[in-house]
């Protein structure tokens, strides 16, 4: 794969490129992610507390809060604001449930042009799909281990 004119091996070249390339501002990104992710959680907590305040049971209040955040994520995606937030917030807006909502609505909007079934329907879970597959798989494994532990005890 090496080039006769370049006096570097593939490995040397990749090290050289690594040293040359501008790095992502990690500290800044982490800080912004912490603030924005935390902010989304605070919004969730406010909704939950408000619900409890109005006499809704805490179990139901959490569900209402979750649904509200999912809606918020989807709505901000639809008005093309979530991607703009994401550029600053990074993982802070990817990890919370609003990010999950964004990852489903974004491809849904994008692939609508190929029709509702093979476009939108088939591609809606393109980004969220892997999260679901491995999330469910992990929970099954954890559940199984938990069950084994109960048996042993």
């Amino acid at each position: 794969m090496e080039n006769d004119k370049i006096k570097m091996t593939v490995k040397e070249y990749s090290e050289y490129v690594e040293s040359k390339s501008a790095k992502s501002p990690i500290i800044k990104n982490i800080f912004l992610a912490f603030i924005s992710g935390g902010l989304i959680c605070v919004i969730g907590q406010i909704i939950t507390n408000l619900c409890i305040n109005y006499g809704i049971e805490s179990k139901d209040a959490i569900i209402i809060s979750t649904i509200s955040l999912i809606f918020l994520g989807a709505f901000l995606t639809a008005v093309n604001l979530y991607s703009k937030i994401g550029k600053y917030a990074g993982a802070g807006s990817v990890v919370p449930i609003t990010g999950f909502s964004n990852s489903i609505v974004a491809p849904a909007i994008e692939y609508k042009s190929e029709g509702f079934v093979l476009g939108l329907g088939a591609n809606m879970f393109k980004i969220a799909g892997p999260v679901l597959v491995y999330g469910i798989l992990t929970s099954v494994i954890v559940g199984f281990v938990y069950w084994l532990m109960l048996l042993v005890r």
Partner: protein
Amino acid sequence: MKIGKQTLKLESTPKILETSAAVGPKESDGPLGIYFDIKCSDVFYGEKTFEKAESKYMKAAIDNLLYKLNLQNDNIDYIFAGDLLNQCIASGYCIRDLNIPFFGLYGACSTFVESIILSSLFINAGYGTKVIASASSHFCSAERQFRMPLEHGNQKPPTAQSTVTGCGAALLVPHTFEKKVPVVTYVTPGKIVDMGIKDMNNMGAAMAPAAFDTIITHLKDTERKPEYYDAIITGDLGVEGTDILIDLCKDYGVDISKVHRDCGKEIYDLTKRDMNAGGSGCACMASVFSGYFYQELKEKRLNRVLIVATGALMSPISIGQGESIPSIAHAAAIENEV
């Protein structure tokens, strides 16, 4: 006639009679905005999908090219064109309506110079008297094919580049045409070079070795020095890629830093957020050459340029399978006659 290892000398020096460039909103707002013929502020260009919009950008550039010269579609012998989309649909659907014999090309971001090379060879051989070379790309259609949906909120690393929305088109004619315009003197088709880079967000690093290989080969074959050219113009190496290219040349004992320019670095204001390392895509070289550099040549602010467009020949499938990015660079020397 072939000279040296890879270069072809065009004895009858085909002329680039006219060019035309159509670009989208971000490019119009950039530092080169005033040079483009058609500036559309709508990424959809009034169409329903981004793919159709890309076709329309190409149609606009070609229609404008013909309009500038007062020509009709049936005056054109052949058209060489390509884009980034699977099966080159942007070009295919655009040229469907034009009724001109068509060669579809895929050279990733190197397509424009590939089109120029083949068109000038056709003219040089006498196979036609009016041949169009064109290439297009579109930020939104490229994002959805190669990366994430647009509305997905994610961050890009600083080495990532932004695909240029637009199209450039050039009309090549035989030297017998009387108008005094820039001519194509030498062309150097490139070899595929792969230095093992796998990061789709660092195309500059993947393509710089290809640009280096082609530039050095061209200079050797033509026995020219870098200073012979007023500018050696690469397509879309961006900030990192440019640094790497200049370093590689220096290591080889050739200094191109004084004459090197990169369309990807010049098309956008890189201080703005999201521009990261600069522009990329077929339209980067196509629109910047057709809009800006061709004007500079015509007005004799530049007299001898080497255009080198680089392309990364990977797909999301090959990247998914863990392959590295094979890259290519094609070069064409375009000069004013004295």
